């Protein structure tokens, strides 16, 4: 690895100062992507600004309205072990236990997972269907945007130089709602999604109140398929409706062929995974309703 300097600021103000003074600086969270990429010469930095000692990036808790405030650098192991997250946002706890393996989850964060902006990232689709909002801050203040607007291409995000992803706000789960993320990988652990689908659903009696569906590894960015959710809203929660929504997701996917799978295989996987994820989300929503 080329030489870089290292700083571990204890506050956002200090971090912004460092980032402003060093145009070649990069934030470091868990490092499970960044250090591998730097070693391979794929990314460079003159200075790594370790954000793990900044209190705002380590936050995990609910505010008065029941919204989850999740710091961008909270490691996956803390998320998946959190009683609060397991009880209120089980799909989030599940995906945190799915990324990499145990020692990766000790370091990797959902904020880092999003900022790395891999099309195959597992975290973003779940955050999208849970309507997570990104808190982005820089020297001139804070802005907020939905997770689906954060990634703009493979490895590229809306973060301007000097800005940091501080964390996420995830609204409280509605009554009679449920969510689920499923992916296809040759190995259960330590693998990268060939394709993945996250679904969140609210049921109202026998009907679907609203639904959200998002995909991984089948487009240049993690992809929210709004049309699939809009199609399902107000429809009876039947197998036919779920299948039709999964077909909408398949048509929205823009997969490529690469070492992990062909475009054709990925399209097929999207219909299967979207259908199954919707089915699980509906079942969980019904359980919550009962």
């Amino acid at each position, binding site marked *: 690895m*080329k*030489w870089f*300097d290292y700083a571990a600021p204890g506050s956002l103000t200090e971090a912004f100062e460092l980032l402003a003074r060093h145009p070649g600086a990069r934030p470091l969270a868990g490092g*499970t992507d960044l*250090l591998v990429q730097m070693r391979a010469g794929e990314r460079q930095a003159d200075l790594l600004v370790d954000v793990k000692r900044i209190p705002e990036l380590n936050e995990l808790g609910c505010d008065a309205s029941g919204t989850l405030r999740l710091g961008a650098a909270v490691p996956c192991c803390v998320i998946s072990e959190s009683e609060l997250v397991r009880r209120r946002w089980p799909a989030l706890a599940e995906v945190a236990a799915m990324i990499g*393996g*145990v*020692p990766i989850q000790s*370091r990797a964060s959902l904020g880092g997972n999003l900022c790395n902006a891999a099309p195959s990232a597992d975290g973003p689709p779940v955050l999208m269907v849970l309507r997570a909002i990104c808190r982005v801050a820089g020297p001139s203040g804070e802005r907020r945007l939905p997770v689906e607007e954060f990634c703009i291409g493979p490895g590229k995000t809306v973060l301007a130089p000097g800005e940091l992803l501080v964390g996420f706000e995830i609204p409280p789960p509605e009554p009679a709602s449920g969510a689920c993320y499923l992916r296809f990988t040759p190995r259960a*652990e330590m693998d990268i999604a060939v394709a993945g689908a996250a679904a969140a659903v609210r049921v109202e009696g026998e009907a679907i109140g609203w639904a959200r569906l998002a995909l991984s590894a089948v487009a240049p960015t993690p992809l929210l398929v709004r049309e699939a959710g809009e199609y399902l809203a107000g429809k009876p929660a039947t197998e036919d409706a779920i299948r039709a929504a999964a077909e909408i997701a398949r048509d929205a996917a823009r997969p490529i062929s690469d070492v992990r799978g062909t475009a054709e295989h990925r399209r097929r996987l999207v219909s299967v995974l979207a259908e199954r994820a919707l089915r699980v989300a509906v079942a969980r929503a019904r359980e919550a309703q009962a």
Partner: protein
Amino acid sequence: MRRAMVRVQTTVNGQPAEFLCEPRQSLLECLRDILGLTGTKEGCNDGNCGACAVIMDGRLVNSCLVLGVEAEGRTILTIEGLARGSELHPIQRAFLEQGAVQCGFCTPGLILATKALLDRIADPSEAEIRRWLANHLCRCTGYDKVVRAVRQAAAELKEACR
């Protein structure tokens, strides 16, 4: 910026440890090349094989994906810290008795993964064991003997707690 070496203060295997490193050096390099703790192995150097796993502040980590400078103020356990003098730790003994060791290169990582697992889940199911060991590649044993060793160690440690 400054291109300065950094002084890092940590606790390694229960003892205070201080070293001087370049910010780009991994914890793995610091342990092996600076502190001389060569029980921790370098395999893939990109987080896939688990040969370099150590326990930092109670969490299993790949030391190739942690910078030495990130260890500042942390507590680290390596394979050298498990045995008490000549008396092996029950996990080490179970690996020996079950023949869960062949070439031995993955063994320090597997043993520390087992320690991290049993510290959290005293009586893990086979599925839990396999999930916890999934980040560790062993090209000799085929894993079944490793799983048996973890079960034996779990049983012994539970007995010892009584």
